[in-house]
């Protein structure tokens, strides 16, 4: 039923798109009709697949590294007050700085290759993951901590056996956020300077007035991002359900 509704909505959007093209007789290099985009997409499928692979790799690498870094930082922050006092302002500062502004510097340092894209994705997801997991770690239900304290638990044991398991749902929210923002980071990186990737392909197509190819790349990026989100969301829900089913 949900699939039917989703397909209906997509069909409706395509119909409106086609209608706008017909009614406004807008030239194809500004807004190509959906059918033309589909045709281009099919004809350029090998090209698009190659660039998708580059972007996808950057996203997945960025996601993995970003999540690992975020989780470690949250654990450090939760473990030591000194670290918390020192690192937190810095963390907020890096987040206040638009990641977009850092893209040219990263490209300068890491080059046109995959490195700068991965770094962008890492930067953009690092804060949401850190802050979500850290919030979870410091919001352990006090009753659990009371109980552990009366049982004579060590700090380490409380962290591993109570705080971390209790913070997993919060980490799950962070992962979902990361899944939506990692593609943004990778594509920004590709816009600033790249030799491959969907972002690069879009700029290239745009420069040559191949708007249909640009749209095809954009749609591919959308499908890629949504698939990634659904996959991560499914993974999070499955793990959390197995971990601690709701009442």
């Amino acid at each position, binding site marked *: 039923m949900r699939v039917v509704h989703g397909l209906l909505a997509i069909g409706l959007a395509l119909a409106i798109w086609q209608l706008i093209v017909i009614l406004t007789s807008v030239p194809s290099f500004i807004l190509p009709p959906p059918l033309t985009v589909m045709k281009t997409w099919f004809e350029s499928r090998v090209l698009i697949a190659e660039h998708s692979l580059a972007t996808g790799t950057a996203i997945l690498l960025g996601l993995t590294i970003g999540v690992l870094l975020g989780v470690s930082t949250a654990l450090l922050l939760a473990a030591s007050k000194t670290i918390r006092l020192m690192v937190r302002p810095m963390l907020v500062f890096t987040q206040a700085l638009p990641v977009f502004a850092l893209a040219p510097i990263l490209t300068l340092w890491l080059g046109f290759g995959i490195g700068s894209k991965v770094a962008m994705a890492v930067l953009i997801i690092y804060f949401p993951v850190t802050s979500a997991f850290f919030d979870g770690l410091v919001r352990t239900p006090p*009753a*659990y901590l*009371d*109980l*552990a*304290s*009366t*049982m*004579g*638990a*060590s700090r380490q*044991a*409380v962290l591993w*056996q*109570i705080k971390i*398991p*209790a913070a*997993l749902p919060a980490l799950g929210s962070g992962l979902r956020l990361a899944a939506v923002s990692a593609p943004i980071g990778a594509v920004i990186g590709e816009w600033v300077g790249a030799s491959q990737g969907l972002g690069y392909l879009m700029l290239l197509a745009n420069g040559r007035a191949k708007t249909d190819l640009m749209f095809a790349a954009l749609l591919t990026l959308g499908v890629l991002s949504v698939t990634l989100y659904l996959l991560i969301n499914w993974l999070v829900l499955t793990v959390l359900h197995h*971990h*601690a*089913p*709701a*009442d």
Partner: protein
Amino acid sequence: MMVEPTARAPEIRVSGSAQVGDTPLFDNLDLSLAAGGWTCILGVSGVGKTTILRLIVGLKTGATFSGTIAAGDGLPIPRQAAYMAQNDMLLPWATALKNVVLGSRLRGDRVDRVRARHLLERVGLGGHIHKKPHALSGGQRQRVALARTLMEDRALVLLDEPFSALDARTRAGMQELAHELLAGRTVLLVTHDPGEAARLADRLFVMTEVGCKNVQPPATLPPRPIDDPEVLHAQAQLLASLRGP
């Protein structure tokens, strides 16, 4: 296998005053817990009865306490005490069995699964040991919490309204089960239920805004039947003293 405590049940004496900020919570309190028996503190919310319990077990309170809390045997109290609260505090990601052995896992001690299984059987949950809390009813969860408390094998047990979230029938059953299984330990029960206090107390204190008063519980031995006329009478009197003049 024994459910009885391996250590001798201590007498606990609490005397002193506590205040929250500048507001006194209780003044010149002097109460002692009967060694090996049930002492109940009955009171409405906010009079500081939970604070007393938390002070004894060494947990943080919002109050500053000046006075002494000491065990008759002179040993440090927190290491002799097990704690059970209104919320069952079961970890939702752990099975009943893992919740029962939580204490030894947190201390890094050897985990005695045989004893844990035995205790779960004693509280009537032998068939549920691998279930997680979400699959258990409120009463069953509180029984897991009781098994976890027994697993700690402490001679002093502090109960903070452990039965108040249960329905009347389950509550009555839990009171009897807890009384049976906690025999031989020094028990402090903090409650706002006059009926519960009248059923279970060997020694009884009523705590109100004006102070803490020692009251004589019914003469029969606990756990007293709910419908015993003397218990019902005591319950009515306790309620009256809670409501004040």
